């Protein structure tokens, strides 16, 4: 094999597109040819650098919103209501019971959908260069960064002393609207804490669930909905949530 042939096949070798026989031929040529060996080494280094080096772009939130808005919206909510209305009117069940049922039915569907969206947002954030829009371990930097970007102001709490390092914040997109994500790290594990406004100011105690292998701790307090998502074990994620909530009670939010 000469250099011209090898130069072309080098690439197929790097890309894993060569059959075993040709791969051996190329490797034999490279072993005796410093020029092709140098090229092979450089191309491999380049591939690696590009894979790791943040050559990707992240779609702007506004673009995501534009596409979402242009797609037909799910009609699940009205149809559910219609079913329940018929049920409530056509039976002797008291208004109170029907209300409770509405709450249960609505919650189950919405909770599942939002949970899977929250996990998708978490997964997106783990791609290279997507984790944070503002990088800072200082709550007084991260907190003001959200100002004017959202209709709520997510509490940002420094939990470094408790073993959860604040690493930054990000705007994300869940349930067809912009949402704040405060990002923490514990050892190698990333925790995304998603914060969104809720209609009710009622406090809802935390629940931990597992969706697609990720743990989600969800709670509501003072008009905000929280979802902490991570591949951390359940007890550690619970620990995170409890420390966050107790810090909120203590009024140490930045």
């Amino acid at each position, binding site marked *: 094999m000469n*250099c*011209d042939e090898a*130069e*072309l096949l*080098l*690439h*197929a070798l790097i*890309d894993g*597109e060569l059959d075993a026989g040709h791969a051996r031929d190329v490797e034999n040529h490279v072993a005796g040819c*410093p*020029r092709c060996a*140098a*090229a092979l*080494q*450089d*191309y491999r*280094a*380049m*591939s690696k*650098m*590009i*894979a790791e*080096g*943040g*050559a*990707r*772009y*992240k*779609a*702007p939130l*506004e*673009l*995501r919103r*534009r*596409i*979402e808005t*242009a*797609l*037909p*919206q*799910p*009609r*699940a909510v009205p149809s559910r209501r219609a079913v329940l209305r018929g049920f409530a009117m056509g039976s002797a069940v008291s208004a109170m019971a029907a209300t409770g049922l509405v709450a249960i039915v609505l919650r189950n569907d919405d909770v599942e959908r939002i949970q899977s969206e929250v996990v*998708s947002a978490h997964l*997106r954030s783990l*791609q290279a*260069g*997507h984790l944070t829009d503002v990088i800072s371990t200082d709550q007084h930097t991260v907190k003001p960064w959200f100002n004017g970007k959202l209709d709520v102001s997510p509490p940002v709490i420094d939990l470094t002393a408790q073993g959860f390092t604040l690493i930054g914040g990000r705007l994300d997109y869940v349930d067809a609207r912009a949402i704040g994500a405060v990002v923490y790290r514990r050892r190698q594990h990333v925790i995304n804490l998603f914060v969104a406004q809720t209609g009710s100011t009622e406090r809802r105690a935390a629940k931990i669930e597992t969706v697609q292998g990720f743990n989600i701790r969800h709670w509501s307090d003072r008009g905000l909905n929280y979802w902490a998502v991570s591949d951390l074990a359940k007890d550690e994620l619970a620990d995170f949530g409890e420390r966050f909530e107790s810090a909120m009670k203590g009024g140490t939010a930045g």
Partner: protein
Amino acid sequence: MPVKASDDDPEKARRFRETALPFLDDVYTLARYLLRDAADAEDAVQECFLRAFKHFGSYRGPAMKPWLFAILRNVCRAEYARRATTPTSPIEDVPESAEQAPLWHEVQETPEAQLLRRWDSDTVRRLIATLAEPFRETFVLREIQNLSYREIADVAEVPVGTVMSRLARARAMLRSAWMAEEEQPK
């Protein structure tokens, strides 16, 4: 650009959201490299997803990502055509000879020259953007989007052999650019 998808089928929209929207960043990345302009890329990606949704009912394959890329590419063709009529942003035309030029032409350095310096993401993006269009497209589809040669050939509508030679040239050109960067004191 159309503003609203007309097909009002919630189940179809739900499946589309689940299967196509996760590739938004991939499609946007490709658009940025193909068009080299953030605003044009956004418009093209939106148009791409709306077209994809329109044809989603008859979608039977290939894999979702290359399917979206092929649609994006068609959208970009229209944008190239528009630019060609705008004197300020001339379309880049690669002469036939560029595709046939010998590969070794690019690298004149000694064979021992090794690439040492690491690039930051701005440098990586800038250098990829300097590649001429067909080489840039093939390179991005392979190195950033991880498509197989067969998938790239289908997206770019060229034979696999052309994919191989374009990729070889793109890498050779980038390697030269890389060496040139290293020679400049930083």
